């Protein structure tokens, strides 16, 4: 008989919405062991190729079955520097778990029967963190001469810095904000990725010798050319996809219409939920609408709901999405958590126009109904607006979470850096080198919007190129 998947324990929905504490608890040793024993240890494990950084999943799960947790930790660390982060934020159901031989789902994401690889990874990562396990630095003569500048301290930058530092290369990471982590800090809320975890992982890199310089806006404070003049032999750009997209509809600049980036930055990076102890304010409303269907939309909605709760407002947060539940790109776990917490979903709805009161604050959203037609280029079924289907939803705070575009602060200051029609940096996909020699790029700025682990995959590839010829 097949063994049942081991579910990770979670804070009860009623309890967790009163704060920003982590929702999912990690596996206990017993739970990790039981889940690892469900793994069939396939001869040709498909899960590994489902992972953007090709973690040797089969091997580390085998080590867990033998209670060799340290061994499992070093197996993961060989290809992924951040198991505690990835174990929490990877959309595993679209990646390694989807490729798991036990998966029976016909959807783009796996069913519950696939091995909970992410929970096991998290267990192993957290074990390593608790026991302060440190992978050795493997220095060689060549690497000690190199000095690499990493621009941006998000997933791509941290990953590249880690890969290089492990080989003994001197790395300086430049971050424009006051603290490091990029989207892991300003975007992903504490209840999904506790700050201690992120701080630990960044600190881990500092212990490897990585130097962090915050408040440096490369392209403004210092140019790429100057970095080379300062003695850096290679530069890696992990700038991220910084600029929020808007719907382009009327009333989008009304008061209390936020981009998800702004709302989340205020809440996560600036701790606006602790206002006035922290000085950055964020507004909240009685009727919050979040537009979008990705992880960012889920994060924004769940933050908004918590803010309502903290401020004694009866929770009312709705997510508006043009397609249906099946096409939503968010992690299934986030959708489930959002639902449990009381967030409502309005599918097949297209925003048309925001209306305001006389002070310029948003009061309602006028919408149109959609239906799904044949699949578009992205493979998802295309929503088509139905004629005369106008209707209105009350809304005194709206958050637009429909995606991001490239930030052009650096690229516009560096005309030699070639970009594509989306203003993303063009790279040689084999080496991740840009149009400027010795300048590499990875993550969202080099490939449009992707996941944390995809960014890490690209950063790793760039690190390998740099290591071959530092």
């Amino acid at each position, binding site marked *: 008989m097949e063994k049942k998947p081991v579910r990770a324990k979670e804070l009860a929905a009623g309890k967790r919405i009163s704060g920003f504490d982590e929702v999912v608890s990690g596996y206990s040793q017993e739970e990790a062991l039981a889940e690892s024993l469900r793994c069939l240890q396939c001869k040709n494990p498909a899960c590994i190729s489902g992972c953007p950084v090709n973690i040797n999943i089969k091997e580390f799960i085998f080590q867990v079955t033998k209670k060799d947790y340290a061994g499992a930790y070093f197996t993961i660390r060989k290809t992924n520097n951040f198991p505690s982060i990835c174990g929490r934020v990877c959309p595993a159901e679209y990646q390694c778990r989807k490729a798991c031989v036990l998966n029976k789902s016909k959807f783009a994401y796996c069913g519950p029967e696939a091995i909970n690889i992410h929970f096991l990874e998290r267990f192993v990562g957290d074990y390593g963190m608790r026991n302060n396990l440190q992978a050795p630095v493997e220095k060689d003569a060549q690497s000690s001469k190199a000095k690499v500048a990493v621009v941006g301290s998000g997933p791509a930058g941290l990953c590249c810095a880690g890969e290089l530092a492990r080989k003994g290369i001197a790395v300086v990471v430049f971050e424009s*904000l*006051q603290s490091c982590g990029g989207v892991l800090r300003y975007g992903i809320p504490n209840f999904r990725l506790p700050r201690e975890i992120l701080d630990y992982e960044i600190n881990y890199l500092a212990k490897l010798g990585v130097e*962090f310089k915050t408040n440096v806006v490369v392209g403004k404070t210092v140019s790429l050319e100057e970095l080379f003049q300062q003695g850096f032999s290679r530069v890696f750009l992990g700038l991220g996809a910084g*600029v929020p997209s808007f719907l382009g509809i009327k009333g989008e600049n009304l008061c209390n219409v936020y*981009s998800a*980036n702004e709302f989340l*930055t205020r809440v996560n990076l600036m701790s606006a939920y602790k206002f006035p102890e922290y000085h950055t304010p964020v507004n909240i409303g009685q009727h919050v609408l979040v537009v979008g269907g990705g992880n960012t939309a889920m994060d924004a909605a769940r933050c908004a709901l918590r803010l309502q709760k903290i401020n004694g407002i009866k929770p009312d947060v709705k997510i508006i999405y043009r397609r249906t539940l099946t096409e939503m790109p968010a992690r299934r776990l986030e959708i489930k958590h959002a639902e449990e917490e009381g967030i409502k979903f309005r599918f097949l709805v297209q925003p048309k126009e925001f209306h305001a009161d006389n002070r*310029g604050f948003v009061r309602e959203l006028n919408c149109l109904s959609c239906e799904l037609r044949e699949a578009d280029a992205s493979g998802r079924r295309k929503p088509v607006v139905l004629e005369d289907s106008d209707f209105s939803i009350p809304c005194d705070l709206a958050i637009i979470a429909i995606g991001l575009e490239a*930030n052009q*602060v650096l690229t516009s200051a560096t005309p030699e850096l070639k970009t594509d029609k989306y203003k993303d940096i063009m790279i040689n996909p084999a080496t991740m080198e840009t149009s400027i020699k010795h300048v590499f790029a990875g993550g969202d700025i080099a490939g449009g919007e992707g996941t944390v682990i995809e960014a890490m995959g690209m950063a790793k590839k760039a690190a390998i190129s740099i290591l071959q010829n530092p």
Partner: protein
Amino acid sequence: MSDLSKAGKIIAKEIIADYAGVRIVKLTVSAPEISRKAKAGQFVVVMASEKGERIPLTIVEADSKAQTITLIFQEAGLTTKILSMLNAGDDLYALAGPLGHASEIKNYGKVILVGGGVGIAEIYPVATSLKQAGLPAGQAGNNITVVIGAKTKELLILEKELRDTADKIYLMTDDGSLGQKGFTTDVLEELLKKDKYDLVYAVGPIPMMKKVSQISQSFNIKTIVSLNALMVDATGMCGCCRVTVAGKVKFSCVDGPEFEAGQVDWEELEKRNLMYLDKEKHLCKLKG
């Protein structure tokens, strides 16, 4: 994680105006990299403390030899009050820049710069740069007329500095305690009626910039304003500072902060800048 660049140490502090509870403060701050890069019209983002807000402040002066920049602000909200409590030797929690586009400095001919209140600090670097606009040696730069105004004479800052820079200067106070009694826009209108000018540059409270825009448009003169939209990251990441310019959404931080005055949706900006009024009131109550 420590910030390894030495930027952010306060070298000097001066209260340059203090009248009926309104104080305007000038800070000279160590900023080796920023002082080398800063150009007129650009700004920095400052955090006074770890729990503080990120606020944009115009770079009033940049001295690459002394490796310092000068910032001038008026105590208004909580953040500027906390900033003004810092003293020489203290460190800003964060300082990043220079941000935004620099002013377009070239030989326009005859230029009027209008500064209202603490906005006077923002026209000063532009006036200086325009005066020295890159011309062949021996030739004069732009002909500069400066019009500055404030509530009363104590709050009329940088008068001496601007007098040294400008070919002509007009001082205005609401109460007539210095210069003429009235508004900067009154003088602007008179000047434009009498003579032909090539550029108007204005920084001040929104109602002033709006009025400047209306007046100069009726004379068909190119008019640039530097906007004071609210910001968070100030590097184009959040969209907090979005403004509608010529019907298009622009981010003040990376597309601005300067825009053509006649194209700005002033009403929208005015409303957006009041978005946190309730929160500010709440803070004032708390801090007594």
